[in-house]
């Protein structure tokens, strides 16, 4: 089991992961060619990004000749679902968060009966409005 509890990635890290998910594997030079050149980023930066992702256990690597060949150690879907679960679990702990505002409160639930009553209230008001419009 990988210990990727909060795998928040920067923009370049995400781009490198996306590239490796797409191409299966690659060494620093090939990643630099696809991801680095259009961003005007040096090979060293790509190498250190790959190293960082390897340390975060998001990439695996094998030494082929003098270079490491990197591949994704976690699939895209799994990483995304971990991220979302992390967000949802944090939202559900009931603590207020200044930077997040959910349409309905994550940490508090109404019961069926209350919702039935509210639906009835809305229906009554709608009927009332229709009657007012007719008269």
């Amino acid at each position, binding site marked *: 089991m990988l210990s990727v509890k*909060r795998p*928040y*990635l920067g923009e370049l890290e*995400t781009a490198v992961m996306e590239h490796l998910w797409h191409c299966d594997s690659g060494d620093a030079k090939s990643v630099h060619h696809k991801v680095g050149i259009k961003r005007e980023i040096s090979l060293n930066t790509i190498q250190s990004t790959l190293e960082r992702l390897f340390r975060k256990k998001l990439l695996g690597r094998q030494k082929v000749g003098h270079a490491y060949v990197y591949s994704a150690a976690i699939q895209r879907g799994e990483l*995304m*679902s971990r*991220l*979302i679960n*992390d*967000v*949802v*679990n*944090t*939202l*559900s*702990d*009931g*603590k*207020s*968060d*200044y*930077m*997040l*505002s*959910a*349409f*309905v*409160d*994550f*940490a*508090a*639930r*109404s*019961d*069926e009966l*209350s*919702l039935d009553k*509210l*639906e009835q*209230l*809305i229906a009554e*008001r*709608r009927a009332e*409005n229709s009657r007012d419009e007719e008269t």
Partner: protein
Amino acid sequence: MSDYLGLMQLALFASVGFAFLAALISRIVYPLARKRLLQQAPARRANILLIWLLAPAFIGLLLTLLSLMPSFLSLMGGYQDHCNVHDGHLHLCLIHPPLPLNNITSWAFITLLGVMAVVFAGTVIFGLVRGYKLNKGLMMASRKHEKQDFRIVEWNGPLALSAGLHRMSVFISGQLMKNLTDKQLNVVLAHERSHAERKDALRQLFAHALSFAHIPWVRRSLLADMNLACEQACDEAAARIMGDRLLVADTIVSIERMYIQKPLSLSALSISGSDITARVESLVHDQHADSPSWRRYLILTGILLLIATFASVGELHHHTESILGFLTR
């Protein structure tokens, strides 16, 4: 700087005292004012509650500055130095600053205040870091909608939220998009975008960070009321945009029902703690007092209070010195 250590100690004690007094008055007045306040239009209510939350800290600071005003005016040469009338009385004076208080009680109190400030600031910073990380996680786990200005999160639950501090982004889960009608989806988007337009995240940050002087349970109640007011203000905005209050109410109930029908394996869900009922009833009944006289009344009261305070700056200065003298004897 060390010459002013004593003055800074006294100014700190005075501001804590004034803030505590304001918090006590808030504790007494808020339950009486709350019913009337809840009748106000949500946007105005949210503004009043924000001011109320910040009031003790600002009153503490303002009254302390005003109590130093006579001495400041003397220093500037606009007011005759009155040190000679003090005759051994503790003196809040910038020209002849008082000696530092070196007794254990004073330093213990200052240390306690320091610890409380660090804990409170730490909590706020932790909340900011947590929010930043969640926002980053959401951005990573979502993709932009092709046509509209929101992001889609591939999650099998009914997720709809806005995240960010200065620039907020709206996130909607794929499952919610599938289960809502186009009109309902537009209600959700209008509601969430209204949070961004109103800068509700910044409002919440200021409210949490600067309401430290309130009595904790009063603070909790004020924050909960402000949160409800913000949600209702966004419901009202969505109702204006869609031209149908009942559609907004209906959407809220529909989404809440999705949560109930598909229970999430979450750690701490509380039943009936939700503000759904208050929001739906507010939309259905539409009974908010929206009279402009309230604003005029508030501004007038504020101006009168300021005039009264400025008029009695001398008295305030003298009584602050007397009370501080008594407390630090």
